[in-house]
């Protein structure tokens, strides 16, 4: 196998990994703040992909420009979902929280199935096949843009969490819910904000994946199961863990695809997942007290 093939596969893996990282960031943020694993995360991504798809085909809006519409909308939807669906079970047993987000996922996926029907759709944009040269290999432009976008959004989120009052309130609520409430932090609103931001992250990933990925009512499952792998790998609730885990999974999947055919490469990822869960459930970079 030529070095070029391996290099471009590696580059593809890194670019895809950036997108996985963005999906996982949303998931890990929600878990970090509320200790809830959001099974509906992929469904929210799927909805955002449909939103961008229709904005592109009906209104002629470029998928990247459609972020201006879908991001605020996704934040609002996430905020509302937390208030209506997640808040009532925050103090319920863990399996009831799982069931709640599972019910939400079932509802959203099948709502999409009823409204949009099962057939996958692809959005072709003028630059779908455009490539950018990098050394001896060529990178697919939409994938490169998605990767760059994922990095920018992660960076902004990092700054937001570290530098703003709301970000500090978010981290405080994640650390110690009752203590934060005693300090006068409106924990309920902070939780809803975290869920809104998490939803916006996954919505951004959806919109940016659209130029090179199909959309169907089930597309979220593909991404969300990978995102579970990523967050567990990086440590549930860990921000850098999601980034590193995302890149790692992207590269493993892409390089694995060189040696085995079809979806078999996923077995490696799930195997890695099970191994990490068993040996180090707090993840590779997870907090020690997790």
């Amino acid at each position: 196998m030529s070095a070029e093939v391996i290099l471009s596969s590696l580059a593809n893996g890194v670019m895809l990994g950036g997108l996985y990282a963005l999906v996982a960031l949303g998931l890990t943020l929600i878990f970090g703040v509320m200790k809830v694993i959001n099974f509906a995360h992929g469904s929210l991504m799927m909805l955002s992909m449909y939103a961008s798809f229709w904005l592109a085909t009906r209104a002629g809006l470029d998928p990247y420009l459609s972020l201006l519409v879908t991001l605020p909308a996704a934040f609002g939807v996430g905020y509302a979902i937390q208030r209506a669906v997640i808040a009532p079970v925050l103090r319920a047993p863990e399996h009831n929280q799982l069931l709640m987000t599972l019910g939400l996922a079932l509802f959203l996926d099948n709502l999409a199935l009823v409204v949009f029907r099962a057939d996958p759709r692809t959005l072709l944009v003028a630059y779908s096949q455009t490539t950018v040269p990098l050394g001896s290999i060529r990178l697919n432009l939409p994938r490169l843009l998605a990767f760059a976008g994922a990095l920018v959004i992660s960076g902004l989120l990092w700054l937001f969490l570290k530098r703003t009052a709301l970000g500090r309130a978010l981290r405080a609520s994640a650390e110690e819910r009752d203590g934060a409430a005693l300090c006068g932090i409106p924990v309920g609103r902070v939780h809803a904000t975290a869920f809104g931001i998490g939803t916006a992250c996954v919505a951004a990933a959806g919109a940016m994946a659209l130029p090179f990925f199909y959309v169907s009512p089930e597309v979220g499952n593909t991404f969300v199961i990978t995102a579970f792998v990523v967050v567990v790998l990086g440590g549930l609730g860990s921000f850098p863990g999601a980034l590193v885990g995302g890149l790692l999974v992207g590269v493993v999947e892409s390089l694995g695809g060189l040696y085995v055919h079809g979806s078999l490469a996923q077995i490696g990822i799930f195997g890695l997942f099970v191994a990490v869960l068993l040996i180090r459930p707090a993840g590779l970079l997870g907090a020690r007290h997790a």
Partner: protein
Amino acid sequence: MRRTAAGLGLLVAAAAAPLLVRSEYVIGTLTLMCFFAFVGQGWNILGGYAGQFSFGHALFFGIGAYTSSLCFLKAGLTPWVGMWLGAAAAVLVGLVTGHLSFRYGLRGAYFALVMLAVAEIFRVAATNWDYVGGSFGILVPLQGHAPRLFQFGDKRHFYYVILAMLLAVTWGVARLERSRLGYQMIAIRENEAAADALGIDPYRVKLAAMALSAAITALGGAFYAQYFSYVDPTIGFGPGNSIEILLRPIIGGAGTLWGPLLGAVLLGLLGESTRGLVRSYAGLHLMLYGVILMGAVVFLPRGVMGALRSLGGGAGERARA
């Protein structure tokens, strides 16, 4: 006494149903209700009584369905025997998964995710392995009316088979509920540290629950493959199937004897009453399941059985407790 009488009455009604109703459609509905109650009882042992929430029971279902179908297809072995081989294989996989998970003290969401991941590994492997039919799956060759090969010309026979399986497993769970092992499972579910301190070995008890649960679910999978003469990786191992399996015991009341049966009847009736709509809108019934699941979590956190018990109907239960 009253419970026994009620149970006997139900049993007679269930056994007589095919004699009174000739409609294949009604018998088909009853068969599926019994089937879901059966695998629901399987899930209930691990997820309900022992409190280890599994999000990947399709793993065992698929192993049962695939093993019995493959033994028949490749070696001509009757599924009546193949189903037990499937159960044995499922127990083996369950024990390995359980050993790894429980040895490290995994629980809650982490255990749920391990089960999901292992089921996914089997799904991807089955999809890519041509010997077991790849993504197309396995068509069980039809032999006409061949009871010795678990094939019946008359669908009512399938109904009697699954009814008998359901009765056997329900009787078994009723015994389990009042056995030492059953009490140990419940103790671990309620407070693992306290159970441990009392000298119960959580690792062994959880493994026992896993083995029983895996075997029952695999037998259900073998029945399913014979009934529909077909299984593929998504039906067999997919997350959708895992949800179907856990839905009924959760709605009916996890960790109760009648929960899986009640859940199967309720969701079965719901499915039938919305069938007309479902035909024109694929996915609508799962959408409804989603709403029901969310509603149940908020309004019936312990399932229908839990709600019945906390209402007046539970006076007897409380008096006994």
